[in-house]
């Protein structure tokens, strides 16, 4: 099985203190067959839930966005975080400025865009929302919770 996926050098933004996994990812199918794989790449048509039995051994999950308009990866990310996955969750592919804040909310903590993003624009995008209406994969209190504290 050939490793593929992004390398640590491709990661432009990372919100984690641990070391970057420096090995490639395998497909979801391969991950389910191989007992030693620690990094996996989810394509939009993959069911993220088949990975749930293996979360303990995974250090890196890449979620691939072949085009920014295919939003299945947002659900994949939340499903993994809801199941307690605490490793690196990396958005890769057609990752653009205006999707960053939502991706962050869905649990992505590392970003490897195909095309490097403007740092200033990205900084603003990550800080776009002071408050949020929905609970998601981040620990932020929702506006409704703040209203009723």
């Amino acid at each position, binding site marked *: 099985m050939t490793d593929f996926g992004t390398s640590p050098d491709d990661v432009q933004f990372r919100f984690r203190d641990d070391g970057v996994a420096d090995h490639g990812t395998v497909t979801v199918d391969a991950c389910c067959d191989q007992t030693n794989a620690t990094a996996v790449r989810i394509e939009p048509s993959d069911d993220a839930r088949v990975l749930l039995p293996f979360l303990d051994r995974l250090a890196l999950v890449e979620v691939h966005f072949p085009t920014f308009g295919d939003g299945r990866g947002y659900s994949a990310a939340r499903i993994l975080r809801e199941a307690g996955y605490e490793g690196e969750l990396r958005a890769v592919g057609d990752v653009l400025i205006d999707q960053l804040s939502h991706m962050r909310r869905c649990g992505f903590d590392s970003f490897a865009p195909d095309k490097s993003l403007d740092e200033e624009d990205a900084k603003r995008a990550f800080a776009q929302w002071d408050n949020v209406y929905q609970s998601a994969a981040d620990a932020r209190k929702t506006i409704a919770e703040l209203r*009723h504290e």
Partner: protein
Amino acid sequence: MYQYDQYDQAMVDARVEEFRDQAQRRLDGKLTEDQFKPLRLMNGLYLQLHAYMLRVAIPYGTLNSRQMTALADIADKYDRGYGHFTTRQNLQYNWIKLEDAADILADLSKVEMHAIQTSGNCIRNISSDHFAGAAHDELIDPRPYAELLRQWSSFHPEFTYLPRKFKIAVIAADTDRAAMRLHDIGIQIVEQNGEVGASFYVGGGMGRTPMIAPQIREFVPLDQLVTYAEACLRVYNRYGRRDNKYKARIKILVHEMGAEEYTRQVEEEFAHLLDQGVEPPLAELERIKPFFADPPFEDGPKSVDRSDPDFALWVDRNTVRHKHDSYVSAVISLKPVGGIPGDATGDQMRLMAKLAKQYSFDELRVMHTQNIVLPHVKIADLHALWTALEAADLGAPNLDTIEDIIACPGLDYCALANARSIPLSQRISESFAKSGRTAELGQLKLKISGCINACGHHHAGHIGILGVDKKGKENYQLSLGGSEAEDVSLAKITGPGFDEDGVIKAVETVTDVYLETREDGERFLDTYRRIGMAPFKEALYD
């Protein structure tokens, strides 16, 4: 009605600044049109046939006089002095400049309005019963639930890049005035064993493959409403088709998967999400409810002086029973004979705002039939109201008649259209007004779409007209027997299409068949259902 607190205001303000930045990046060339398009669409900005078009959200169709006045001012300042009320209970401006768009959004935010998610593959503006809070037959006011869902759906991090657009309607009466079962999700607030909850209908829609939504859950407790909606959306986001734009709506998923299997998956996801803290605290619903409390109704006269026949006719046609017997809901028709359905000038909007303040506790509603409602008008004030409306060409007495036509903008404005809709509606309303048969025909809902996307709801028309392109010429297909109401049904095509003159004549022909064969008290739709398509077909084509 609902008022923003500092959080709601901050969200809208942040969005204005985000869009200002995005528009600037587009003008600077940092964003391509392909990248900018979904962003501008999520702020309601389309590129239409003649210019940019801005669609402003009017959540659940409710607005106050200050907001209506602001809409009028924007029409005058940034557009060409008018706006168009749509079948989504929204308002569209037709002549917007990209360089003004962020300023317009900023003006809207000053009156607690926005254009967020009025387009794009996200959860759109939530629609509701235009008589909510006034209707005599509702269980409770559905708008607090619509507002709860508005907040949940605004900037939802997981559901902003869905397979396709997503429309939700919330009602709370057995009479359906919001085409609830023709929505991606239709919610009816119901009571069961003394407890209030929500019935979920999923997978309805119009467009090229119209479907009536099946019920997938009879009763969702109110403290799980948002969680259940989240489960419905997650299953759709994961499994809705993305290979074909025309098969991407949730109705296709529910149809292909089967309502039973879709329901099973939703229930599974729902059971999982119940532990995830998705639901806002119930206190939030309790916070929202008082915003929609009844205004201070007063007892007064319960009937009008009918000595002026024009006034009496308007009262009979355009006012609707209210839950308080000294009040009615009054419908301001935006369908003057020969006019453009749904269009209102800045001056007309300002007048409607003023009248709302004077006579309707400062409230207005937008109907999906492209008219405006003053929901709470004292019966004693009706004559003064009517006199003011008449003077501004807003007094057409034609609610739910053949002159009250729904028409999409069609080829006169819309880049997707194949044929013009508005000229047809103008000629049809003129012809029936002239022949004087409008009254005789009674309730007759005629709906016209200029293309298969069905913004003019032609599938749900008692009589529906669909404009198509036939070798570069406008051509119109006639259909009969649709309804958007609680007796929901989809119209069936009569046969080969007609040219413009031909379809107008065809509408006259089918109304003739109705008048000749109707039995006591039957509407056009009832007669059609009783006698079927054959007699109409025979009259049209033999």
